[in-house]
């Protein structure tokens, strides 16, 4: 069938030039010889038609004489002749397809006029094809569509005959508006839209469309939509275990299709049409069916659909349609109206002079006549009356006149529409068995019109009965309303909407209400006055008040979401947060009342408690935590998409088997409950911070901008690097240096221009890394790093998959240990930060590195990274560091520490923030950590930065742990150990695991080495990164520590451990005594950083440590300042304790 089209163009390989006038003449000859279609000549005819088309298209571009001939010989008539012979499907399909191609490819206006002239095309359009044949139907409608695409101000005259009021293209097309095949419906929509668009410039046509077709078409369309809605509702009601989801989703999509179509009509912005359409939509669909269903009691028979379905559909309406008169009127009723709109007296919509509501009561009722019938009738009537009423505005009067003449008592319904008239007329005609189609005489149609009225009256009477019942209800309502105070207007719909926000049992309704409110407040078509009057959230508007009721309900939703058994889905919560922000944020400031803010804070607190219940030290918790943060931020709720999903229409479910998105259902099982708790926590936290105007400083745990990225240039002085050959999976090889940072590992290459600097070729998170040995090569490691994914179900995508080959097996072991430990430490640090976020005391887990865990607990903030950034990019700028410190002040723990240090001589208390439950050991750890942080500059640039940052946060310790494990330093303070990493690794190898673990962990890794040029491999510019201020501070801290006995002892302990480390180091590495001493000094410096704020002792040690000129300058400045400030509180001038 379709294959036949193959040969229609060219390709036949005939000797004769087929593209010529001569050939067309020949074809004409063939046609004249075969005027009758028979089995024998069928193929020949089809082939001929095909060839003719081909020649015409060729002629269109090359030879206009072809068209002259075509027209002259009236060849189109042959086509028609063939069609009319009932020659069968084969020929019909071929002809339609050919014509389709012909019209589609004609490019010259004149050619088109030729083809369209003589009304042949219209004859084809009205030809009664066998539409039961799917293929004929498809080609036919496709043909109409092609024609409609050719419509313009000129061509329209070939289709629309204003004298006879014929517009076959349009009227034939809309008869298929409810065709079961969706592609046919779509084509009909295209045709109507094309027609409406053209009608803008053609008054006659416009009037014809509006007067003769708009009402029948739109009323039928509205009924069609409504029937779908009722079916949809039935589908929801009868659903069991989500079995109806397929059908439901189709019905929802269908509804969306309709809304988009309506919107497309409305935005053509043809005022006349829009009036009619708006009237029908409002008064025959949205109000009576959707809105009215919100308030009718369940038992009432008037209730056609359920409130949740109606809320859902209304949300869609507001999300898609923005036509001002329509949505504004609709919103007005929902938000501000009462039931009076459903009584005859209401004149809210009287502005629409149209007649659909003239009966006074909005009803969702089936049009009394099929569209086809009404069209047919209106056409005949139209013929009769064209002269009489050229203007639509006269229409109603005329109707009235007629009715009066007929003696009909339907005065009250004078506005009844003409089309209904026709409809009734049609009924009558049917009843009498008269042929409506033939009614050409004005007499006949006149008669039919009169009888129509009688029947109409009967119909109206029937209607009245139903009206009465309705009226009863509304009367009661009214009296009820009257008894209330006048001032308080009853708003039954709004009341319903607000009360549906209650989530104590489920959030089935609440989600839709939120969507509806969101959609209404974001609709461009809604008058802001209306929203403001009701104090509803208007996005991006300055305001001074908000709806207390709404906000109260929103907060209640949030607090319910934070309950352990809360039935609030994540989508609901997210939407509540959105609306709340919209309500109470005006510009940059928040106008929420203190009481409500307190309630919100309460909800946040509850969410924190909820999450604590799920907090586990397991690896998976960290992954979940970060996954959830990612997916929450990467996929913010899209309300439009949410409202396209039919699955939310069914009652909320908990089972993932339904395939419903996690945020749109309740959690199932512990993992999902944990995930949910995490999300709830995130959302409420972010909301609370935003309302209080505070920036988020702790989430995400790693900010992408803080990480080392490919092509970054780093100062690698004092970094421990291991050379290796990286063999990627696809066989590529590269010589690289491996560096392990706090959170990342990176592969670097030397920077050619700056000594001691390197260019990052790859950087990946340690926490997502897997290290394994390679079986037959003791010098090689297999390393895989996965990309963190926001979807827990997605297959992890490796961003690095390679073998690292080292110079020898020892270096290989070193690298392996460094990486493996780095991974553990990185994860542990993050866990500690989560714990801090949750205000959890960090349990000193016996097995773990003591110092590490505690330090982490001490540092509640994720600051290290931030600090790190600055120090790396602007290593010499002490002010930058300071600013970081300043920001640190916000961390409660730190702030306390800060105060203490300033006012009291004993700074010890400060290092351990109150939040950390850990005891004195904790303090010590923290102190050590701080030291490390200070010293860190010597190591990798990265290390330094981190540590410093931590110091700023008040929680120094974490950073140190990683490096410490790797590098035990010979100096008293572990941080001092500047030894080259290889040495360290050797040490670790030598020393028993247990030993290494303890000592290493306790030791702050990085610090001092950088200070000592000797210690570090690269003696050049280590100093650059160090901010002098921090050093000075550190020194002070140390002094303070000394003061306190406890701390001293602890320090002593550490010192011992460190000494061990140092010894080892000394064994392994050639570290001079001088180095060691230097280290000591540095360590002291390090201690201070915990309290960055304290800028006390500018001490000589600090100066010593600084080898570089660069460093000295800033340091000195700082130290000077510090000394002034600090003089008071720093009792001990030196930090000799270490010694």
């Amino acid at each position, binding site marked *: 069938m379709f294959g036949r089209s193959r040969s229609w*163009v060219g390709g036949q390989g005939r000797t004769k030039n087929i593209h010529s006038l001569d050939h067309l003449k020949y074809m004409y000859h063939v046609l004249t010889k075969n005027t009758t279609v028979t089995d024998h000549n069928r193929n020949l005819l089809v082939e001929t038609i095909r060839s003719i088309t081909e020649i015409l298209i060729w002629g269109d571009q090359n030879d206009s004489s072809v068209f002259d001939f075509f027209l002259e010989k009236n060849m189109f008539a042959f086509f028609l002749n063939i069609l009319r012979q009932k020659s069968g499907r084969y020929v019909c399909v071929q002809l339609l397809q050919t014509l389709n191609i012909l019209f589609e490819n004609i490019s010259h206006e004149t050619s088109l006029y030729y083809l369209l002239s003589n009304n042949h095309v219209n004859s084809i359009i009205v030809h009664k094809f066998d539409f039961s044949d799917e293929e004929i139907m498809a080609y036919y409608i496709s043909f109409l*569509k092609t024609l409609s695409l050719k419509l313009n101000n000129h061509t329209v005259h070939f289709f629309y005959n204003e004298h006879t009021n014929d517009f076959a293209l349009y009227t034939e097309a809309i008869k298929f508006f409810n065709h079961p095949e969706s592609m046919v419906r779509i084509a009909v929509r295209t045709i109507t*839209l094309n027609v409406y668009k053209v009608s803008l410039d053609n008054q006659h046509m416009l009037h014809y469309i509006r007067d003769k077709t708009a009402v029948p078409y739109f009323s039928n369309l509205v009924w069609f939509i409504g029937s779908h809605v009722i079916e949809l509702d039935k589908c929801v009601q009868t659903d069991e275990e989500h079995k109806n989801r*397929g*059908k439901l*989703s189709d019905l929802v999509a269908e509804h969306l299709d309709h809304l988009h179509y309506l919107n497309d009509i409305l935005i053509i912005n043809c005022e006349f049409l829009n009036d009619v359409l708006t009237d029908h939509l409002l008064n025959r669909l949205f109000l009576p069916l959707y809105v009215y269903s919100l308030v009718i009691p369940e038992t009432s028979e008037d209730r056609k659909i359920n409130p949740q379905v109606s809320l859902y559909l209304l949300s869609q309406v507001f999300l898609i349609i923005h036509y001002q008169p329509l949505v504004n009127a609709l919103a007005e009723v929902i938000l501000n109206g009462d039931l009076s709109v459903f009584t005859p007296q209401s004149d809210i919509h009287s502005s629409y002079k149209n007649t659909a509501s003239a009966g006074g009561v909005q009803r969702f009722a089936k049009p009394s006549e099929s569209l086809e019938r009404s069209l047919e009738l209106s056409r005949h009537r139209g013929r009769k009356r064209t002269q009489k009423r050229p203007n639509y505005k006269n229409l109603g009067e005329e109707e009235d006149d007629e009715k009066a003449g007929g003696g009909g008592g339907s005065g009250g319904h004078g506005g009844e529409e003409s089309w209904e008239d026709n409809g009734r007329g049609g009924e009558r005609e049917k009843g009498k068995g008269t042929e409506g189609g033939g009614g050409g005489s004005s007499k006949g149609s006149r008669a039919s019109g009169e009888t129509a009225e009688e029947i109409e009256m009967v119909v109206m009477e029937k209607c009245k009965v139903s009206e009465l019942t309705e009226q009863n209800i509304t009367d009661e309502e009214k009296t009820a309303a009257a008894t209330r105070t006048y001032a308080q207007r009853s708003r039954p719909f709004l009341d319903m909407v607000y009360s549906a926000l209650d989530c104590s049992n489920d959030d089935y309704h609440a989600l839709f209400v939120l969507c509806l409110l969101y959609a209404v407040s974001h609709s461009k078509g809604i008058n802001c006055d209306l929203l403001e009057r009701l104090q509803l959230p208007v996005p991006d508007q300055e305001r001074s008040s908000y709806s207390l009721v709404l906000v109260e309900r929103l907060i209640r939703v949030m607090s319910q979401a934070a309950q352990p058994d809360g039935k609030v889905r994540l989508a609901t919560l997210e939407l509540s947060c959105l609306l709340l922000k919209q309500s109470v944020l005006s510009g940059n400031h928040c106008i929420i009342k203190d009481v409500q803010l307190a309630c919100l804070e309460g909800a946040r607190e509850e969410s924190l408690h909820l999450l604590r219940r799920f907090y586990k030290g397991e690896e998976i918790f960290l992954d979940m935590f970060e996954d959830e943060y990612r997916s929450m931020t990467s996929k913010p709720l899209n309300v439009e998409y949410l409202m396209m999903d039919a699955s939310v229409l069914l009652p909320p479910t908990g089972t993932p088997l339904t395939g419903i998105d996690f945020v749109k259902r309740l959690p199932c099982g512990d993992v999902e409950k944990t995930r949910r708790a995490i999300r709830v926590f995130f959302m409420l936290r972010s909301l609370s911070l935003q309302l209080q105007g505070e920036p988020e400083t702790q989430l995400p745990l790693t900010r992408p901008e803080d990480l080392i990225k490919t092509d970054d240039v780093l100062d690698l002085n004092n970094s421990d690097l291991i050379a290796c050959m990286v063999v990627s999976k696809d066989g590529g090889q590269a010589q690289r240096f491996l560096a392990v940072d706090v959170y990342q590992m990176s592969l670097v290459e030397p920077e050619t221009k700056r000594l001691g600097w390197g260019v990052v070729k790859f950087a990946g998170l340690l926490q997502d890394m897997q290290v394994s040995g390679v079986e037959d090569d003791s010098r090689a490691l297999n390393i895989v790093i996965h990309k963190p994914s926001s979807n827990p179900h997605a297959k992890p995508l490796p961003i690095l998959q390679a073998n690292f080959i080292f110079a020898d097996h020892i270096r290989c072991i070193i690298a392996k240990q460094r990486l493996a430990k780095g991974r553990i430490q990185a994860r542990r640090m993050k866990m500690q930060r989560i714990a801090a976020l949750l205000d959890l005391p960090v349990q000193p887990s016996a097995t773990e590195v003591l110092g590490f865990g505690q330090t982490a607990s001490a540092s509640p903030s994720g600051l290290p990274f931030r600090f790190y950034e600055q120090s790396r990019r602007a290593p010499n700028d002490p002010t930058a560091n300071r600013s970081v410190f300043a920001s640190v002040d916000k961390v409660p723990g730190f702030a306390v520490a800060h105060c203490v240090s300033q006012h009291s001589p004993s700074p010890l208390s400060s290092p351990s923030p109150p939040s950390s439950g850990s005891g004195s050991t904790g303090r010590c750890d923290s102190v050590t950590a701080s030291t490390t942080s200070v010293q860190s500059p010597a190591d990798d640039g990265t290390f330094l930065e981190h540590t410093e940052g931590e110091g700023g946060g008040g929680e120094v310790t974490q950073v140190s742990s990683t490096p410490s494990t790797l590098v035990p330093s010979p100096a008293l303070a572990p941080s001092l150990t500047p030894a080259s990493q290889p040495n360290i690794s050797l040490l670790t190898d030598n020393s028993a695991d247990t030993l290494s673990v303890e000592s290493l962990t306790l030791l702050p890794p990085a610090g001092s080495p950088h200070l000592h040029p000797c210690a570090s491999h690269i003696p050049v510019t280590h100093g650059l990164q160090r901010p002098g201020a921090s050093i000075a501070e550190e020194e002070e801290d140390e002094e303070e520590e000394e003061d306190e006995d406890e701390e001293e002892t602890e320090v002593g302990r550490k010192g011992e451990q460190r000494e061990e480390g140092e010894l080892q180091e000394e064994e392994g590495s050639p570290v001079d005594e001088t180095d060691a001493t230097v280290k000591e000094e540095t360590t002291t410096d390090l201690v201070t950083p915990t309290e960055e704020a304290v800028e006390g002792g500018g001490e000589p040690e600090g100066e010593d440590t600084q080898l570089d000129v660069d460093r000295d300058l800033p340091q000195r400045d700082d130290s000077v300042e510090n000394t002034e400030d600090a003089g008071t509180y720093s009792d001990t001038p030196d930090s000799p304790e270490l010694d």
Partner: protein
Amino acid sequence: METIWLYQFRLIVIGDSTVGKSCLIRRFTEGRFAQVSDPTVGVDFFSRLVEIEPGKRIKLQIWDTAGQERFRSITRAYYRNSVGGLLLFDITNRRSFQNVHSWLEEAQSHVQPHSIVLLLVGHKCDLEAQRQVTQQEAEKLAGAFGLRYVETSARDAINVEKAFVDLTRDIFDLVRSGDIKIQDGWEGVKSGFVPNTVHSSEEVTKGSRQCLC
């Protein structure tokens, strides 16, 4: 004489104008390349049978629509009623490649909450000399969106069959596994007439069963 097919898949072909959508479709459905001088035939749909396994034929209904539709409601309907499609760009036209993302987004926004099986096609690969988009970057992009990538040429008939057949297979697998369900009112996949032979396999029964629910 109804042709026997197991399923009918409705596919769309999208991409910037002039990337050669019509040519590709015609090459596939008619087996020939439309010369430049030929008028562009913009018929609504084409169809062809594809035999993906011996005895298992799939009828492809291919819609070539994008561009001529000015109305959102119409475009939406086309997308929604398709089970899959080819997303074309022209390897000699960098811009068309850059627009791939927005095509994807559009497709996605129209078919929400469902998805549509797409296959990325770099067209006109016979014009190697004028290539502006390398195969690697196209593959990378395809990978990022989880699509397959094929380079085709309608002129030289390179990979045209493969593009359609691969897509058909993918969809067929999804239908067979139940990830794509036949639904009343959705025309992306229709269950077809099956000869009353051994071939009336479990897929068909499965498909029809899903129809009922």
